[in-house]
């Protein structure tokens, strides 16, 4: 029974992964990487990139949740897959892992990268940091230090202090200036540059030093994830199980395995996925949200957030989630208290009426963008809600009551007091 449940859970979480290769031998040469993916419960379909039967979206529905493009030389994909189709795939929430190469990058692959704000530069060369054993003399098998060249992003790269040196062989990525969604996960060292190693250098290399991005992660605004790299070798069995030999350092096992595993986990949405389970707001002491709030009321706000961990949704333990109460500008900004995944706050509404939003806009590196907007109206007081008797009005109360009293007195005098008619006559003649 337990096994069945586990199976069910595994199959529910199991994502379909399409791997496009330009050569079926990649399946063998990168088997360690693929095995770790299948071990985590994903089902992989291998296809040649130029196969005529390829299809990503059928009748508007995604056929796969994830796409791994290990076909750097593809000039044109087969079937209905085009760069535009892949863009559509991403816009509908599909994740993409794209690996290029140092040279011979196909037009289709370039287009896919360009759709996400990247271009492929030539082979990366580093005359200082290269592997003395694996390199063929062109200094293109680069050894990178995990500490200084990886981004501080544990969800994407893993714990970089524990990673060994990373072997890299391939081209470099150049990011477009408008590409604000990218995270430069892995940058080249300052001594690296990109160029064709067989040709003399005539003009300035298109990527130099730390501008050259080796692995970049992009989380689109719909939370679809992409990892782009210019090296297919990064994932190869050869690099994953290699021992790194660099001049002046001791030989050590490469950190590629841990690095690409954690990259794959991130891009296949196994880590750093948040979701709002429920959101609730109401007046203090009540249960249901009112149709509209009144100014100066005390409000309880509660947001339940969950994180995906090991195929299970568990309460999120972040302590830095903030709530804003916004009407063009935030009128209230407060940090939510996290109690076992239930983030809550209690605050007083501002003394300004209008249409407000409870806004939680949580963006952290590696996490999906957590956004929750609840629009409410805050109305002014009802005409019956104002204070009835105020101190500054006492003179007016006094005057009205004295007026009433004097009216009674006056009517009494007017009705029952007869003035002397002679005097009145005398006055008139004056």
């Amino acid at each position, binding site marked *: 029974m337990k096994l069945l449940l586990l199976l069910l859970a595994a199959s529910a979480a199991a994502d379909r992964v399409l791997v496009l290769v330009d050569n*079926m031998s990649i399946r063998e040469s990168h088997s360690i990487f693929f095995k770790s993916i299948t071990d985590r419960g994903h089902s992989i379909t291998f296809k040649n990139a*130029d196969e005529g039967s390829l299809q990503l979206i059928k009748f508007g529905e995604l056929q796969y949740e994830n796409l791994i493009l290990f076909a750097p030389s593809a000039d044109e994909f087969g079937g209905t897959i085009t760069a535009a189709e892949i863009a559509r795939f991403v816009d509908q929430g599909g994740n993409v892992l794209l690996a290029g190469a140092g040279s011979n990058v196909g037009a289709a692959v370039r*287009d896919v990268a360009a759709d996400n704000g990247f271009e492929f530069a030539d082979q990366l060369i580093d005359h200082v940091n290269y592997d003395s054993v694996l390199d063929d003399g062109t200094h293109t098998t680069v050894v990178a230090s995990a500490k200084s060249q990886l981004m501080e992003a544990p969800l994407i790269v893993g714990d970089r202090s524990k990673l060994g040196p990373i072997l890299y062989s391939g081209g470099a990525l150049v990011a477009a200036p408008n590409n604000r969604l990218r995270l430069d996960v892995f940058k080249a060292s300052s001594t690296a540059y990109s160029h064709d190693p067989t040709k003399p250098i005539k003009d300035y290399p298109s990527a130099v030093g730390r501008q050259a991005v080796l692995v970049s992660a992009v989380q689109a605004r*719909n939370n679809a994830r992409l990892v782009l790299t210019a090296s297919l070798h990064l994932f190869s069995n050869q690099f994953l199980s290699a021992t790194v030999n660099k001049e002046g350092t001791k030989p050590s096992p490469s950190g590629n395995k841990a690095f690409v595993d954690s990259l794959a986990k991130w891009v296949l949405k196994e880590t750093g996925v948040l979701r709002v389970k429920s959101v609730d707001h109401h007046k203090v002491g009540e249960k249901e949200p009112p149709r509209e709030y009144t100014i100066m009321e005390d409000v309880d706000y509660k947001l339940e957030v969950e994180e995906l961990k090991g195929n299970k949704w568990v309460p999120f333990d972040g302590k830095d989630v903030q709530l804003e109460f916004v009407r063009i500008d935030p009128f209230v900004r407060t940090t939510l208290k996290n109690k076992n995944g239930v983030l809550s706050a209690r605050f007083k509404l501002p003394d300004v009426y209008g249409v407000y939003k409870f806004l939680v806009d949580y963006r952290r590196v590696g996490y999906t963008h957590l956004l929750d907007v609840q*629009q409410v109206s805050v109305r002014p007081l009802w005409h019956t809600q104002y204070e009835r008797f105020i101190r500054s009005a006492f003179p007016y109360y006094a005057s009205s009551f004295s007026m009433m009293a004097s009216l009674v007195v006056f009517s009494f005098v007017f009705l029952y007091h007869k003035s002397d008619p002679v005097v009145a006559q005398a006055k008139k003649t004056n």
Partner: protein
Amino acid sequence: SIILKVMSSKSGLLRSNSLGYTSLLTFVILALAWFVGFASRLFAIVRFESIIHEFDPWFNYRATAHMVEHGYYNFLNWFDERAWYPLGRIVGGTVYPGLMVTSGLIHHVLDLLNFPVHIRDICVFLAPTFSGLTAIATYFLTKELWSAGAGLFAACFIAISPGYTSRSVAGSYDNEGIAIFALQATYFLWVKSVKTGSVMWAALCGLMYFYMVSAWGGYVFIINLIPLHVLVLICIGRFSSRVYTAYSSFYVLGTILSMQIPFVGFQPVRTSEHMPALGVFGLVQIVAAMQYARTRVTRAQFLTLFIGGLSVALGVGLVGYLALVWGGYVAPFSGRFYSLWDTGYAKIHIPIIASVSEHQPTTWVSFFFDLHITAAVFPAGLWFCVKNVNDERVFIILYAVSAVYFAGVMVRLMLTLTPVVCVLAGIAFSLTFEKFLKSDEHFRGSSAGTDNKQYDKLKKQKGSEGADQTSSSPDGAPVSEDPIGPNVRSIVSFVMSILLLMFVVHATYVTSNAYSHPSVVLQSSTSNGGRVIMDDFREAYHWLRENTPDDARIMSWWDYGYQIAGMANRTTLVDNNTWNNSHIALVGKAMSSNESAAYEIMRELDVDYVLVIFGGVIGYSGDDINKFLWMVRIAEGEHPKEIREANYFTEGGEYSVGAQASQTMLNCLMYKMSYYRFGETRVGYNQAAGFDRTRNYVIGKKDITLEHVEEAYTTENWLVRIYRVKKPANRNGVKYTERKIRPTGGHKSSSTVGRSGRKGSLKNKAVVIKGKRPVTA
């Protein structure tokens, strides 16, 4: 023409000497005036349909419907979150509720009588119905001022006068529709209370004033005119205990009552517009005390008291007022007030007021257009009043003089001029007819004049106690002494009748052709005389209603706010209740910025759709491009760094969207949205592409691409264009033309059209060679 028939038959019927006939006749004439006034206002319904017109009426209708549905207190406390997003609007506190309450009450009464009428029909027919009440109120006012005959003339004039019809045709469900009745009734009751000096009439006047306050912001006119009347009476030595009683009762009651309207609140004691009334109230007390003291002290003492007391009181009052203004307890005069004295003021300081067409100065033509013969005749009536002046005629003189001035300043105030013109023209006509028809009557044995006299005397006997009637007899003018030949009489009478006839014809013509357009539906005619109805506005609003989410926020210029709220039932950012200038300026800034700057503003304001009115295809001149300069000006007022009016002109300093237009103009959001895809169309066979029919030239930039907004809907005649504001791009791609790296060997873009079964292509396709290991890339 019915009126005229009645008019001419009146003189004939008046021969009978009985009071009963006179009353019957009066009743019949007033009833007919009501009927004709009602009927002539129905052109819009006959031509189009029973529909609410224009802009403000849509809000009034929406508010009325809300009140009828949810009850008065809910209406009073209604917080409208669909207006002025995201600020919202407290409707109950920012509206004159008289109109809504009136129609709600009528609806309720009819409901009680088991006579269910849709609230929309009540709203549509309210103004025509009230025009009859206005006629009756005018009759009573004129009767108090002059005579019953003049009253009947005035009632008939006001019933059809175009100046008043313009604001009260069926469907024009606006405050003015009932406010003119309230205005006339208040003036009648004021005149009555001055004449009688009775607290009852003054209290009624205060009540009527309360109704006026609840109905229209124009009540400020009353609360300044009546004190002015009192002040002038004091100055010309006509002050009496009647005036004292009337004004004191009226002011106290009226002020307290007016403060019950939430929108007015403490304004009567806290704004400068209301201070003259308070000052005159104080003055009246002093003058009354003086009069009381005069009989009790010596002359010398009195003079000291008078001069000393008065100057001290004036000084203290003035210093006190200035101190209160300086201390912020009393608001200084508002910009709207200044713009009444300096017509250029608004254009410089408050562009939002100047941008409204009905706030422009009046042209001479529109005086004739709106008043016709009465405009020419009323000075005569004014002259008769000046010649035979008494307390209440001082009032009508002041009313006439001030109303003429204000009508000259603003087209809109033609409305307050019309009633007084009708009253005075009625007096003039009545007097002239009396003079020129009388001997005719003598000849036949019984006279309309004497009849009139008797009727007036009767009235005088009723209420003449204490009134100084020595010089005020309406027939005191030396009329019957002059010998006039019968030919002259008949010619004059004939000409006058022709004039009246022409007035009726003109009024009907103007009502039918100029004032009966709903402006929600446009009408034009084809070359062979057929009518073409253009229903683009409703088409667009209906599209919004059916195709956008319920909470979609629509950005448009404020003119269309009420209509969008009323017809499309969607949230708007700004509307015709122009209470927040900076919010309007923000919308103006979005419209006049380039697309990316506008996009930022629109994102900030959560705009989902943008609506523009574009008349270039059909030649509709009231479109947004023609209003655009005002948007720029209003935006410049708040954001002078980003928006500069000068940038939107051509080098020659003209406003143009043609070939010479500036780059700022051609790249602003308003231009782009108005002319998007317009360059591809031709409006006529012999016109160039992109020829704008409203501006009559070819537009400056035809190939317009939109980045952050996309066209969502354009109506049949392109009158309304709706754009959807796009979400921010999911990915930040790099365009092919912007790529920096060109791979060697030439780069070909991958095919954009995929189809099943198509083979792809790889650069180094693996070839299987037996006995060899495959090589990886």
